[in-house]
């Protein structure tokens, strides 16, 4: 514990919030080298996703969409550091642009999870009674539907586009979050500060947003962090199965599928995007593990 090493005189008793929950959590997170490693990788990835188009205009990397069939499956060269794919497109550039899709999916979907799962969990937990019962039965039924199947049905019905895939992945995964938040709210709403707020005349919506939501933030953040690799995985799987992000947009799943055609002759074609995908998912999992240990030490493995 960081606080234990601080002598009594150093503590600013006037502003006791100085060592708040979040600073404390950050201190613990920082001391976890694996989690920090994951965070550094994700930061690099974000940087890559933001700067990739700029690098193309500066001619530092090749255009990921520019085809040159005469130069397909070129091996490593200065011009194409990782070689080219079956249409002669630069592999390095495509992997770098693939991060954009994966990160966009990972983050957007969490917003949808939060909107649907958060609302249902908060309302269900706070109101209780018949509403809670009804909503939880709905959640149970939703849970019984294997997620990849539902996704495949949706993309079979609507032509896969960026919008359809973002929405479909968002609609299937909120169940865990709804359950988590409901459980948190159920235990929190009996606490004195909620009773106090009610006594002071706050209505349900104000109590939910002002008092209950902030107190459930820790577990929610952890759950959302674990949701990111899951969403990335689902998008890559759809694209790998050939029903995901429509080509020619570079997505790691599509690149793995493309490279798979030539796996015996050019194994690196499939290995590069596969490793990018695996390392990205692993990094988010490491961050999730680190956050869980940091925010709630009791939840430690």
């Amino acid at each position, binding site marked *: 514990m960081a606080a234990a090493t601080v002598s009594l005189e150093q503590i600013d008793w006037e502003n006791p919030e100085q060592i708040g929950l979040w600073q404390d959590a950050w201190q613990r997170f920082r001391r976890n080298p694996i989690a920090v490693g994951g965070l550094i990788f994700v930061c690099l990835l974000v940087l890559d996703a933001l700067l990739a188009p700029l690098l193309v205009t500066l001619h530092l990397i090749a255009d990921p969409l520019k085809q040159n069939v005469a130069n397909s499956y070129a091996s490593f060269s200065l011009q194409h550091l990782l070689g080219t794919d079956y249409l002669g497109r630069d592999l390095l550039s495509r992997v770098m642009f693939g991060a954009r899709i994966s990160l966009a999916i990972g983050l957007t979907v969490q917003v949808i999870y939060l909107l649907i799962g958060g609302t249902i969990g908060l309302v269900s937990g706070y109101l209780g009674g018949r509403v809670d019962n009804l909503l939880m039965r709905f959640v*149970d*039924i939703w*849970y*019984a*539907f*294997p*997620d*990849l*199947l*539902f996704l*495949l*049905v*949706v*993309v*079979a*019905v*609507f*032509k896969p586009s960026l919008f359809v895939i973002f929405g479909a992945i968002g609609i299937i*995964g909120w169940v*865990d979050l709804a*359950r988590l938040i409901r459980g948190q709210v159920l235990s929190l709403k009996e606490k004195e500060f909620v009773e106090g707020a009610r006594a002071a005349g706050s209505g349900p919506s104000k109590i939910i947003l002002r008092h209950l939501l902030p107190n459930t933030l820790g577990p929610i953040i952890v*759950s959302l962090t*674990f949701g990111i*690799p*899951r969403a990335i*995985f*689902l998008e*890559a*799987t759809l694209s*790998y*199965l*050939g*029903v995901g992000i429509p080509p020619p947009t570079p997505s790691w799943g599509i690149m*793995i599928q493309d490279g*798979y055609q030539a*796996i*015996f002759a050019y*194994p690196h074609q*499939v*290995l590069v995007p*596969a490793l990018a*995908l*695996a390392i990205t*998912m*692993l990094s*988010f*999992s*490491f961050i*999730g*593990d680190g956050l869980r240990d940091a925010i709630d030490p009791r939840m430690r*493995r």
Partner: protein
Amino acid sequence: MAVAQGAPPRGALISFKIPRGRGASLGLYIVRRILWLVPVLFFVITITFVLMHLAPGSPWDREGKQLSAAVVRNLNAKYGLSDPFFVQYLRYLVNVVHFDFGLSFQYEDQPVSSLILKSWPPTAVIGALAFLMIVVFGIGIGVVAALRQNTWVDYIVVGFSTVGASTPAFVLGIILIIIFSVTLYRVTGGNFSLPTGDFALDQHLIMPVVTLSTLPIAFIARLTRASTLEVLRQDFVRTAWAKGLRERLVVTKHVLKNSLIPVVSALGPTFAVLITGSVIVESVFNIPGIGRAFVIAVGSRDYPMILATTILFSVVVALANLVVDLLYTAIDPRVRLG
């Protein structure tokens, strides 16, 4: 994936007061759980059915090729697509109750049920073997890691379960192919490699089963390790050590009986992971099972096939959860149904 990362162990779906007598309540419980299947399936069918009818275009749209209006009219009449939505929906529900899943759109005059009957053996064999691997290795390495906590054995298991739990199945399958079928073939001059060619059940099982089971093994190992560590710290285990019992007896008689309870409850959701996994693994290894049939049906908008497969998968997952919940009460008398 969904289940592997932090899904809570699931209890019973319906809670109810238990009447007197354990046997009577068990029978009643099973009946209620099976009845619960009805609304679940109704929901699954309705959602899928509605989605398909919301879809823009018709299943006869093919890229490039345009069917003439007369042909489309005949096709619609043959498959009953010209009736109003509600008529189609009710007819489908009635037919499903009679186990009639209709004709496939993609193969002429092939009932969906015969397509499924034809493609289930590889899926079932690979799934069963993978499940066996999950139970044996997942629990095995989890217990060993807990017993040797903070040794290199433990570190290897923890490392494996972390990496294994976040490696997509198709990435793992591809890496296995590159190692065992591409590199090994080159290195040994073609004398030794694992086959990747056309699928045959008797000789192409190793890589699909390993690919399918790695993620659940990692998940179960992690869970087993955590719960075993918790039990190892309990007083009754210390007592067992103190009275001089051998390690084997302490572990089997005292530790495992308690530490496996949460693990068993996680085996139900594992079935859902295996089913979604089979879709991926069968595509990677080109296995003619139900999972690949489903992907093909999705690609060609074969609605009857998609509906039937979705129903089948939902039933399997629900039944697996039921069996696991029953097992749960059998190994832990403290747990009461409900």
